[in-house]
């Protein structure tokens, strides 16, 4: 469960990136976080993960305040950043084992998960190579595997589908659905409306740091009858 209450963030005392944002995401939900460039998506995600400190407000992950109990809160989620260029001189297998050690995953479980996800993302033969030799999509996959290896109850993903080939994108979406069915919370940002439409139980539309809509896509469509999803999105964000 993710609870974001009255969170604001201003950069350099001038630019209000997030403005009094409140969201509650229940277990078992897949939430698509949608908004134009510079809307405040990444800033919100960075505050949820402890990378940035909010100026005001509280963020709780499974009931644990990320500012008050950072280590306990950080154990609750797995995070995939929008930049997969991480530890490029480690081999894929070294990165996964490093993540497993940091999250203290038992040996038998880490091996079972490495095998499963390497097969799912077609990375089995790449694990012995340095991440430096990977394509953008492969780097994205190894970072995803680094999250899956510790089996978090909350997934926070920033543009996770960018750069993935169709097969891997499909596998990731199926895994997200499976995790939600198991009662886990999935929160991801995206620009692709079709993905949100097919995958999400709810969407949160953000622009200029404020939530403009939070609910199911069906309700949104009902309120804007006869319009395409793209038109609805443009109309909602233009009223910010």
């Amino acid at each position, binding site marked *: 469960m993710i609870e974001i209450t009255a969170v604001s963030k201003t950069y*350099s005392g001038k630019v209000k990136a997030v403005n009094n944002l409140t969201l509650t995401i229940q277990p078992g939900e897949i939430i698509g976080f949608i908004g134009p460039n510079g809307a405040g998506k990444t800033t919100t995600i*960075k505050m949820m*993960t*402890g*990378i940035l*400190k909010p100026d005001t407000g509280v963020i709780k992950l499974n009931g644990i305040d990320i500012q008050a109990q950072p*280590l*306990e809160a*950080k*154990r609750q989620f797995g*995070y995939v*950043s929008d*930049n997969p*260029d*991480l*530890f490029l*001189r*480690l*081999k894929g*297998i*070294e990165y*996964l*084992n*490093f993540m*497993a*050690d*940091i*999250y*203290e*995953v*038992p*040996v038998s479980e*880490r*091996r079972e998960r*490495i095998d499963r996800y390497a097969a799912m993302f077609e990375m*089995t*033969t*790449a*694990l*012995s*190579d*340095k991440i*430096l*030799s*990977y394509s953008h999509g492969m780097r994205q996959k190894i970072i995803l595997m680094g999250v899956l290896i510790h089996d978090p109850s909350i997934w926070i993903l920033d543009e996770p589908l960018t750069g993935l080939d169709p097969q891997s994108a499909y596998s990731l979406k199926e895994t997200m659905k499976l995790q939600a069915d198991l009662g886990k919370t999935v929160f991801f940002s995206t620009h692709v409306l079709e993905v949100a439409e097919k995958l999400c139980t709810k969407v949160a539309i953000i622009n200029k740091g404020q939530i403009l809509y939070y609910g199911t896509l069906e309700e949104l469509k009902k309120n804007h009858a006869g319009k395409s999803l793209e038109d609805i999105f443009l109309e909602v964000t233009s009223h910010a």
Partner: protein
Amino acid sequence: MRSFWALFVVTLKNTLSLVDSGKKKSIWTRLLPAFLVVAFIPTLFSFYMMAQEALKLLIPLQQSGVILGLMLTAMSLMIFFLAIFLIPAVFYFSKDVEVLLALPLKAHTIVAAKLAVSMIYEYVSVLLIGLPILAAYVVNVQPEPLFYVITLVVLIFAPLIPLILAGLIVMVVMALFPKARNRDLFNYLSGFVALAFAIGINLSVNSIVQIDAQSMITMLIQGNDSLTGIFGYMIPSIPFAINAMVHLKVLDLVISLAIALGFIVIFLVVSDVVYFMTAVGVNETGASRKKLKAKAYTKMTLRSNPMLTYTFKELKLMIRTPIYLLNNISTVVLMPVILLGSIMTGVGSDDEAITAIKSIPWNDPNVLAYVLAAGAAIGLFMSSLNLITVTAISREGTNVYFMKFIPMSYFKQIQAKVFSGLIISFLGIVFMLIPFGIILGIPPLSLFLSFIAALLSGVLINYIGIIVDMIHPKLVWEQEAAAVKQNLNAAFTMLPAMGLGVALFFTIGLFPQPMWFAFTLYLILFVLDVGAIYLAKKTCKKAFDQI
């Protein structure tokens, strides 16, 4: 010309924006330039004094131009040495290369713009060597106003030929050896070539001094700055530049500029033939894409303590990144070799020195105090020289966010970084103390006690290093080299470490009994270590909130 200018301005702006990120400047950032100026004053002053002493001898012999020749040669060598690292980084491995290759630009336009930007990097060397020596020259020779104009022109063009020579070597190597077009391999190669070059220069300077002494005396007797002719062997424009500066001959200045122009033309012509051929695909990295064998897989998926795994991650990344290996780790092996080499050659041929060393009463408490001070100084020296902890956060670059979302406390993470630095410091101390101990015949107990002092001072420097880098990390960089080599944080540990190391020897005399010195040394180092660890713990939360 228009596209050259546009490219030069954009590249320069990008370079400068990496230095000034536009963020609000902290008090540390504001104090840094002042600190650096103060830090460099002793170096600049020592250059000034050397030039002053040399000029006192050279002016009566009408050889004052020699000092200008030495200045230009030293500048050229330093620039060439730095260019061996700089040229591959700027011309081939910088992030903009792939973008530039796709633009409708000629090779010579890209190369000329990158050459111009590289020149700006090198003016730091020009100023560092040029300012004190020219100051001494002006004070002693009192030249006419035209000297200043000519000197300004000479200094503006000083980095050009050494840069072009390095550029030509790099391009030819890239063209002839396609395997060198791998960034890591090239960085390893260029690093070791540069180190070999530095050692070679050391040896050749010694041999020149010995072999050509007779011809130097002849030239000195001739007077009228005839010695300046010897500098032409290295950079052909230097003798003309010296003549122009000493005798205020504008024609010589024009000739030196014409030579520089000739080098530019040759460089651009070569670049039109070679650059595209060598730059295309330069950032590709090889991979085997083989499934891990069962035995290797089992070994690589064993569970380990998070602190241990983090420390090893730090060491792996350092060893596998050529720039870090050369800058952070190679010193551990290199410094003992250089120092021991110079002692062996110096002492080896001198019977008196060997007898003097053998007669040192190592068990005398006074001598032991000096051995302990030497141990502490070696600890300070070797720990500050490897730059590991003082750049540990900076090396993370834009990936520093990783430290902020994993469930491991900041203090544990920085401790793991300090441990990686301590391991390398420890190796450096061992490589330094044991050979010295054996050569000088120091008793094992004295050596052990000095080793403890070295470790205590190593802990101090490593924690000071991480505190400095937490407060003021250099996170915005395009090339790994910038995180280490263009990181001014290093000055905050290196200079105090050197100063403290020297000061230790002077404090021995202040104690009535040498044992008091030993006890005080251990106690102060221990208290400082505890203080530094406490400060690191106190600083980390606040520092990471700011990052």
